[in-house]
């Protein structure tokens, strides 16, 4: 988890700085990290708020960015046996990184999922708090190249999952659909379209598998 914390912290700080510049108060900035806990949505919301966008636009943008989490939930609900209370809690803490690390661990112990997700929650919120306190001291993480850790993390999580031709086909089709979709749609729907279509391809390619 440490590499992911190191990636999350600069962005938490950068979000706090962006939110401050957009006119959000310290309380509002921190509250969004606690209540929403979704980095891309928070950045977008801060930018839209600063531009004077309507609340409806901010909500729609959040929906477009976060709709891929439906797929994460579907996948996790099959891997982890969660009580109703655990599902309600997991829904607050679920992020791309938590999903990736929890799924790639191979365990079906919910404790691993919650440990991963909670650690990221605290890292993100502490970083937000630090950003509120630091003001304009911290440089843009993208200029330092720290934004590269996220695609690298997903690539590092993807490679061990590609065990054969079926998985490779799924990954390639997903990449193609995502690229095509991104020419006309925002990121969120492109990821969902890729996720759904490539997963269905995987189901079709394994239709003759004997169940375990």
């Amino acid at each position, binding site marked *: 988890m440490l590499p992911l914390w190191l990636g999350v912290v600069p962005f938490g700080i950068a979000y706090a700085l962006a939110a401050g510049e957009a006119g959000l108060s310290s309380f509002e900035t921190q509250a969004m990290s606690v209540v929403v806990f*979704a980095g891309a949505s928070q950045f977008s919301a801060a930018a839209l708020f600063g531009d004077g966008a309507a609340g409806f636009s901010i909500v729609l943008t959040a929906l477009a960015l976060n709709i891929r*989490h439906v*797929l994460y939930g579907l*996948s996790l609900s099959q891997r982890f046996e969660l009580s109703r209370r655990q599902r309600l809690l997991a829904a607050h803490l679920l992020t791309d990184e938590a999903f990736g690390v929890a799924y790639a661990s191979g365990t079906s112990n919910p404790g691993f999922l919650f440990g991963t997700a909670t650690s990221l929650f605290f890292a993100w919120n502490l970083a937000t708090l630090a950003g509120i306190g630091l003001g304009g001291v911290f440089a843009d993480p993208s200029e330092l190249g720290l934004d*590269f850790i*996220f695609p*690298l993390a997903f*690539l590092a*999580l993807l490679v061990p*999952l590609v065990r054969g031709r079926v998985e490779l086909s799924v990954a390639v089709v997903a990449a193609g659909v995502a690229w095509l979709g991104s020419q006309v749609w925002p990121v969120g729907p492109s990821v969902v379209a890729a996720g759904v279509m490539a997963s269905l391809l995987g189901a079709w390619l394994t239709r003759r598998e004997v169940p375990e």
Partner: protein
Amino acid sequence: MAAVTYGSRLAGLLVSQDAVPKTAARAFRFIPIAVFGALVTLFFQGEDADLELRIPVALATSAVMFRFRQLWAGLAAGMGLYFLARAF
């Protein structure tokens, strides 16, 4: 905004293991591969994505992950190589 974010996360989690037909269950198995493949693709196609450095580093990271299958090793190797390449 919090409700929309929470709702999209909860929607998938509410589906119980027993309620899922076999075909859907097989499809769900491939969601991580599909979503990670999509996310990596979209990250690498940004306009200022620094691709001439990032693509070779990504390939090297893939090789490290293929060999060692440890997330920390892949990230350490990848980010280390990337910072070295940027320095030169």
